[in-house]
C-alpha cells in the first residue's frame, strides 16, 4: 500500500487528538507532582526541538539557550505581574516607568516574550555569525553570561539578584503541551521546506552551499531567530510554572542539560530531540534514586546529593565516545516507516507481494 499525504496528515491529526484526550485524563486523575513533571517535559520538548534547529540542523554549535530562556522568562514575568505586585517585589529600587504600569494577560505576555527574544536573537546574530566553530560556542556562551550579568545588575528592571517572585501559575498542561505541539509542527515544516534544505546544506558544507547561491548568513540568522522565538516563549512558560525566577536559574547548567538532550537524541533529528527530552524529564526524576540511600542485598549505600550530575556528566562523555550519533542519528519518525512495519499493512498488502 502506497503512502499518501492525506493519510499521513490524518494520522498526525488523530495522534494530536489522542494526545489531548490523554492530557485531559491526566489533568483529572494525576497528582500535582506528576502533572508538574508532564509540564516540565513539554517545556523541555519545546526547548530541545528549537535548540536542535540551530545546533543539529544548521550545524552551528551555539550555547545560547540559557540567554534566550532568561530573556523570555523575564519579559513574560514582568508583563503578567500587576503594578501592585511589582511594587511589593521591587523593594530595593522601584521598577522603571512603562513596566510599572503594564500588565497583560498570559497569552500576550508569551507572544511578547517570543517577539522580544527573537528580536534580540536577531541582533545578536550579527556579531555571533561572524565567527565559526569553537569561537561561536564561546561567543554565545559569553552572551549568556552577559545576559545573566545584566539581569543581576539592572536592579530597576529585573530586580537584580532578588528576582521576581509570586508569579501566577498560569502554565498548565494545555499551554505547555499545546505550545510544544505548535513548536514541533512549525519546526518540522520549516525543516521540510526550502529553508530547511538550506540549513542542512550550510551544515554539511558552507562553502559549497554559498557556491550554490545560498546566503549562509541569512540562513543561520533565520535558524537562530526562530530558535530564539521558541526558547523565549518556553522561558515564559517555565517562569509561570516555577513561579519564581532569578538570575541564578539561567546559568550554563540549563544549556548543558539541553545539550545532553539533543546529542543523546541525535543531533539533527527533531524526533530524537522529543524522545530525549521526555527521557530526560522523566529519567531525571527517576534518577533521583541515586541520591537516595540504596540497599543492595545487605549493603547499605548512603544517598549522595549531587550524584545525579556526576552521572549525567559521565553519561555525556561516554555518549560522545561510544554513541556519537545518539538515539535517532539523523533519522526522523514518519508514518510510512511505522506502517510498513505494522501488521496492518500486511493485511492490506494481501498474501505475498
Amino acid at each position, binding site marked *: 500500500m502506497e503512502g499518501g499525504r492525506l493519510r499521513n496528515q490524518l494520522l498526525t491529526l488523530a495522534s494530536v487528538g489522542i494526545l489531548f484526550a490523554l492530557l485531559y485524563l491526566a489533568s483529572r486523575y494525576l497528582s500535582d507532582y506528576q502533572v508538574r513533571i508532564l509540564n516540565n517535559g513539554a517545556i523541555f520538548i519545546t526547548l530541545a526541538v528549537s535548540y536542535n534547529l540551530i545546533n543539529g540542523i544548521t550545524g552551528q554549535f551555539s550555547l545560547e539557550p540559557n540567554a534566550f530562556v532568561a530573556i523570555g522568562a523575564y519579559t513574560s514575568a514582568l508583563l503578567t505581574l500587576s503594578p501592585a505586585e511589582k511594587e511589593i517585589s521591587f523593594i530595593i529600587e522601584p521598577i522603571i516607568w512603562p513596566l510599572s504600569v503594564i500588565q497583560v494577560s498570559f497569552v500576550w505576555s508569551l507572544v511578547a516574550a517570543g517577539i522580544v527574544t527573537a528580536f534580540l536573537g536577531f541582533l545578536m546574530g550579527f556579531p555571533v555569525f561572524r565567527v565559526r566553530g569553537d569561537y561561536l560556542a564561546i*561567543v554565545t556562551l*559569553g552572551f549568556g553570561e552577559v545576559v545573566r550579568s545584566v539581569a543581576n545588575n539592572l536592579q530597576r528592571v529585573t530586580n537584580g539578584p532578588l528576582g521576581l517572585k509570586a508569579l501566577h501559575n498560569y502554565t498548565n498542561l494545555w499551554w505547555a503541551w499545546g505550545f510544544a505541539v505548535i513548536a514541533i509542527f512549525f519546526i518540522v515544516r520549516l525543516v521540510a521546506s526550502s529553508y530547511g534544505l538550506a540549513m542542512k546544506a550550510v551544515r554539511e558544507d558552507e562553502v559549497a552551499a554559498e557556491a550554490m547561491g545560498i546566503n549562509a548568513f541569512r540562513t543561520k540568522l533565520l535558524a537562530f531567530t526562530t530558535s530564539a522565538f521558541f526558547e523565549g516563549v518556553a522561558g515564559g512558560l517555565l517562569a509561570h510554572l516555577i513561579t519564581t525566577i532569578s538570575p541564578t536559574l539561567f546559568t550554563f547548567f540549563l544549556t548543558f542539560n539541553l545539550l545532553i538532550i539533543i546529542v543523546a537524541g541525535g543531533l539533527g533529528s527533531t524526533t530524537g530531540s522529543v524522545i530525549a527530552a521526555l527521557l530526560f524529564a522523566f529519567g531525571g526524576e527517576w534518577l533521583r534514586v541515586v541520591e537516595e540511600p540504596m540497599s543492595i542485598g545487605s549493603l547499605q549505600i548512603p544517598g549522595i546529593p549531587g550524584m545525579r*550530575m556526576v552521572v549525567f556528566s559521565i553519561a555525556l562523555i561516554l555518549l560522545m565516545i561510544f554513541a556519537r550519533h545518539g538515539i535517532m542519528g539523523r533519522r526522523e519518525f514518519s508514518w510510512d516507516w511505522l506502517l510498513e512495519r505494522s501488521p496492518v499493512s500486511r493485511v492490506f498488502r494481501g498474501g505475498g507481494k
Partner: protein
Amino acid sequence: MDLQLFGQQLINGISLGALYGLIAVGYTMVYGIIRLINFAHGDIVMMSCYFAFFGYALFNLPWWVAFLGATVLTTLLGILIDIGAYRPVRNAPRISALITAIGVSFLLENFALVVWGGRPKAFFRPDMFAEVVSVGQIHILLLGVWTPAVTIALLFALLYIIHRTKVGLAMRSVSRDMETTRLMGVNVNRIISLTFALGSAMAAAGGMMWAMKYPQVNPFLGVIPGLKAFVAAVLGGIGNVVGAVLGGFLLGVAEILLVAVAPALAGYRDAIAFVILIAILLFRPTGIMGQSLPD
C-alpha cells in the same frame, strides 16, 4: 582620578592579569596543538587549588611541598583527561570533542561538589606572600609582586622548552601538521599528552596563586577565570604562548581600570571580558600576535 590611584589600580590589574595569563597559556597550547578549546581547563585550575588545600590542611605539609604536590597531581590530572576523554574523540567531528570537553568540565565541577562539598574552604596564605609593601601611597601585597614575576619566569621556561628542545620542536611540528609529524616517527599521542601536562602545570601555578589572592576555594571557582583566560588567549592570538600572557595582562588591566574609572559598572565586571571578546572577534579575529584562524 589621580595618579596614585591609577598606579595602585594598574598594579592590581597587572597582578590579576598575570593570573589570567598563566591560565590562558594552557588554553592556547592545547588549542594550538589539537584545535580543541579545553572547556575543562578552568576546572583543572580549581582542582589544583583543592589539591594544595588538602596537602596543607589535611596532611600538614609545609606550604611549598603542598604546592609542589598539587602541581604534580594537577599535571597527572591533565594527562588523565587527555587519555581518558579527549583521545578517543580525536578523530571525531569537532563538535563531539567540544561536547566532551564540556562534559569533562561538568564532571570535575560536580565531582568536587559531591566529594568536597559546596561550602567554600579558606585557603592559606603563607607569610612570605601576605606582607604588604608600600611605595609612597601605593600599597601592595607581596603576592602581587610575586605573581607577575613567577608568571614571567614560567613563561621564559616554557618558551625555552618550546623553542630550544627537541620535544618543543615536536610540539610545534604537531601543531603545524599532525599527520606528517606522525610520519616522521614522532609519537604524536605522547607529545599531545605532554602539551596537556605543561598546560596543566601552568594552570596549577596560576590556580594556587589565585587561591592565595582570593582565598575562598569552591567547586565553581574555575568557571569565570577559565572563561576570561580564554578571552585573554584569543585577545593575544590563539596558539601563541607569548600572546596568551600578553592578552592576560591586557585583560586584567582593562578589567580593573574600567571598574576603577566607572565604579557604577562594577557589577558588570565579568561581562566586560565577553564584550572585549566579541569586539576582538569582530575587528581583529587573529588577536594581537595572531596566526591566521584555522577553520
